[in-house]
């Protein structure tokens, strides 16, 4: 049962990492424009255009 003392905090750590990752995506505004993000993959990068 001693293994529990290691596995339980370990799995909690993994869970917390997921929450932290979600919090990061939220802060980065990744849910602000779902329609645009879906469409943006179809658009060529603006860097591809010749330098003006």
């Amino acid at each position: 049962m001693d293994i529990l003392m290691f596995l339980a905090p370990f799995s909690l750590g993994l869970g917390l990492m997921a929450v932290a990752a979600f919090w990061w995506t939220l802060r980065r505004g990744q849910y602000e424009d779902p329609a645009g993000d879906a469409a943006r993959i179809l658009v060529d990068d603006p860097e591809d255009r010749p330098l003006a």
Partner: protein
Amino acid sequence: MAVTYDAPSGDLGAFLKRRDDGGASLDLLVPDARCAGCMGKIEREVATVPGVRLARLNLTTKRLSVEFAQGGAADPGAVMATLGKLGYRATPYDPSAAADAHDREGRALILAIAVAGFGVMNTMMFSVPLWAGLFGQELGPATRTVMMWFSGVVGAPCALYAGMPFFRSAWRSLKARRANMDVPISIGVLLTLVVSFSETVLGGRDAYFDAAVSLLFLLLIGRWLEHRLRARASSAAADLLALQSPTATLVGEGDALTVAPVSQVRPGDVLLVRPGERLPVDGRVVDGASELDNSLLTGETAPVAVGAGEVCRAGALNLSGLLRLRAEARSEDSALAAIARLVELGAQSKSRYVQLADKAAAIYVPVVHTVALLTFAGGWFIGLGPREALIRAAAVLIVTCPCALGLAVPAVQITASARLFRRGVLVKSGAALERLAEVDHVVFDKTGVLTEGRPRLRDTCPAALAMAAPLARASRHPLAHALAEAAGEGPLAVDVVEHAGLGVEGVIDGRRARLGRAGFLGVESHGSETELWFGFDGDLRVRFTFADAMRPDAARVVAALRKRGLGVEVLSGDLEGPVARVAELAGVDAWQARRTPQEKAARIDALRAEGKRVLMVGDGLNDAGALAKAHAAIAPGTALEASQNAADLVFSGEVLAPVVEALDVARDARARALENFGFAALYNLVAAPAAMLGFVNPFVAAIAMSGSSLVVTLNALRTGAREWTS
């Protein structure tokens, strides 16, 4: 009434937001951007405008944010011109601080959901062995206590964090000496946590940490749906308002033109109003002559001629000539004050409306708390001991917790409003849908509601039409535009000169011709109809008459409303003749003409005194009072700002069918919500006695709670699935 919006050519500097680093940014609303192609094109082209550092389009909210490089010349006009060349309308957008605060609330809710989700998954990890122990599997008391400690250490902080929105709201309502739905939720969660901890410490059998967190998780989803409904409605309403000429053109020293937000106009400022623009504030004409369309203000469709020295009202549409106005009031206190008071009165009566969920809560809260208290007292009394009695009381609170009310009603409302949104109807709040479902009498305004609110050419001789068309095509006047529309494509007159407030003059096939008011062609006006005269120099004069065309499906909509058992009447500010004609075409017997805004509102009050629940459909400023006083109100998207604010729902498009669709969906939503309450009541009738008798353990509670939430949510998704076919 279609508001044509000409991109202001003047200075748009008022909408530039200066950044600390010396750069500036500009927000534009581009409502027609729909696809990846639009987005790529817009971002690419706008980025090539000199001075622009970055252009990014949010395809979900249709907002283009343009950042200007620091030190460079920031020219919003060039950006607007570029968009115009690409074929997109753009409007400067002034995102208010309120919208930002709203978004912060939404993010806090999402984060609370994430924390609750983490809590649910990780307490479940420790709950599963505990549940297994409940069914006779081997689990020593020491291991069980360890598992309970783990689940408490993870679950309790998550529950306390995720519960904050509920605890805060409950505290606010308790301070106001009322009990809303968040009071039993908060008491239930806190009591459960306390009981679970004491059981863990005492080495007991039942800990409900997982139930407390999963309850909050489900309720937070409902809370977030509600929030999204509000946020989307308010942002869509803000978009509509942004499209309605948010600027005024100020004439400064030496005739320099500057464009300023309407809110910055002060009495005494001189304004320029071009043909096709709405008057931003009340004012007196300094110079220029034109005709004004006051239909949104008075309901009368016939244009009114104005000249220097005359007073005109905000909201009137300038039809033909350039006008210079001296502002006599700020936009907040234009002649609208009296109507604004009516609207405020109506809004107060609406805020007293009690929503279904609150009605249910008023019954639910005392019943559940009495039952829990009785369980505790009764259990102790029959000799269970205070500890077992408290566990059972907590179990009662947990299993009866109001998922159906917290989750199902928002789910129904968001499904209903999403379906309506796809059909071009904007729902401002969930309460609006509930009020709409109760309506049994419909009052229509005439102009712009039953009719299209813009002139159409009446039957005429095709030969005369073909003669006048070349001149009509060259003019910007709405009547000429209607004439050109009737004539179709064709040649244009040359040497065209517009005479403001009079008409247009030009050369067709070498002959000089005039199109305009009767006086412009030297003839006497006939009758009261809206008319336009045409004639070649020294030749016969031809008269064209115009009428406001009916919306194509007005009669069918009236019939459909009748079929649903609703009374229908027309209340208009226009003259008897046109009102009677429109009422007859729409199939309405009850109509009243020449109503002032106050009389309209009074009529709504009278109907309400008769016990009727009235739906008002109107667009004009003269309807705003009635819209606010009615039980529910719908305005077309072309209505004035004040009317849209007073209405609960706003629909767009050429047809009136959305009124029936909205009514159907609202009634459907009400039925679903009632079904959900019925289900919740049935569920509690079974669950509460089971909990009182001690049959509920943490496993049963978890299954029962998520099961009931799933059922009510799936039921909510059925809302408004039926299509209304005309």
